[in-house]
């Protein structure tokens, strides 16, 4: 189902204001409640979820680094964000199967909001099954919760925890698989409970 914009041209829904409003509310909830998984399938048509995250948040005021080359050239004019070196980028898009080899902006003591937001593409997010089982605690979590992630290099989690070790400095992560979204703000304490080769599928 394609939607129409005001002049009648067909547009993928992720570029429409109504969709972006709905997706933003979902993003706001997943970042407020780490461990909550939202499924965006009904909004995406054929777009990858990471593109919908970027479409919802970016415009010409911010910079983006596409570290793993997940975007196509035609995505950039629509996103309007300017390309930036990863060390200076406001937003960073990565394929999480490859370990990070850069240092993102962590913000400053006076302006911790100058930190980067990372969008990490993993292969699957699930409450029960996956290669790495994580325990999450911190603001937004009622007690504690667990989440399983597949298709993420473990170095990401170690690196992320190090980057977030001196609050208020840190980075905020949005993990996406094909259609689902998980928020890991810098305040979330992430512990690896188990690493499983078969993803817990017995």
């Amino acid at each position, binding site marked *: 189902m394609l939607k129409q*914009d005001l002049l009648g041209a067909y547009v993928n829904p992720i570029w429409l204001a109504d969709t972006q409003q709905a997706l933003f509310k979902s993003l706001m909830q997943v970042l407020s409640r780490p461990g909550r998984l939202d499924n965006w399938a009904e909004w995406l048509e054929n777009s990858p979820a990471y593109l919908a995250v970027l479409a919802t948040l970016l415009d010409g005021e911010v910079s983006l680094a596409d570290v793993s080359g997940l975007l196509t050239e035609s995505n950039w004019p629509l996103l309007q964000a300017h390309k930036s070196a990863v060390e200076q980028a406001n937003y960073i898009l990565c394929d999480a199967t490859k370990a990070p080899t850069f240092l993102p902006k962590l913000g400053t003591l006076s302006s911790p909001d100058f930190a980067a937001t990372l969008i990490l593409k993993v292969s699957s997010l699930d409450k029960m099954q996956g290669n790495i089982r994580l325990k999450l605690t911190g603001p937004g979590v009622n007690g504690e919760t667990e989440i399983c992630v597949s298709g993420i290099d473990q170095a990401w989690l170690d690196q992320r925890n190090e980057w977030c070790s001196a609050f208020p400095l840190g980075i905020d992560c949005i993990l996406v698989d094909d259609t689902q979204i998980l928020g890991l703000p810098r305040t979330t304490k992430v512990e690896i409970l188990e690493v499983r080769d078969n993803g817990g599928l017995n």
Partner: protein
Amino acid sequence: MSNQAKTSDTPFRQASAEYNFGFLDEYAKKEIRRSVLKAIAIPGYQVPYSSREMPMGRGFGTGGLQLTLSLIGKQDTLKVIDQGSDDSVNAVNLRSFIEMTCPGIDTTTKVAEANLIQSRHRIPEQALREDQVLVLQVPYPDALVVVEPSEDKRKIMHGEADYSRLLVKLYEDIVKFDEITISHRYPTRINRHYVIDSSPIPRWDVPKMNDSKALILLGAGREKKIYAVPPYTLAEPLEFDDVPFRVEGFNDETGKRRTCHRCGCDHSFLDEFIDARSGEKLYQCSDSDYCDEQLKSLSVNQSLEG
């Protein structure tokens, strides 16, 4: 390919419609939305944003209004409260502005029916749910302004969670006046780091921010700041071992809890007023929706008994 090329200017076209859904253009909304996510990720930190001119004076809740307009969609049900009431001039003006600029949304006066609640001076008595978002209007966002005039210095103090001077000031007031004199905007520490100005809510409402099921967003239009108290997050009013934080008391001279003259409630925040005819002091729930709901359940019970 051709599809995308044709539609690359879609956001411009949407923004240039006579006025956009939600009054703000999509760029203004995106900036506020990005700030909201930062505010959630750094609980209690005041995220700067470029507050837009609104067709009403700053100080009339434009910070809260811009938040609401950036969040709201056609599937939302909105409640607007001012000092606990849905019917005050301010609340009515804000609500009609939002209704006019957001065709298709629903509005309500009932907390239970709303998923988006914009408020000034009160947090509803009825506990909020996980699917609700509370937007509070804030006139002065920075709790440190009473001890440090320079914003640059305040930002460093906040970053270092250095509140020693604020605590000294608070303690001096207590010694001088033998009581915590701050009845409103009580400084509250979020997630053991940032101290926020809790907005002009009574002390009575401050504990509702702690471990809240609902996300709480605070917006200061004039000062151009957005901050947040995420759900399930520690929100602790500053206090001292010998002077613990306490909420307003509503006991009469004999130590008996005053009740609402209208619904009989003995556990809500009460407003005091003088009855015009009798000259008598009367007390009534400040939260008018809560008062109505109590009154309704009272009459249901009475008719059941009768």
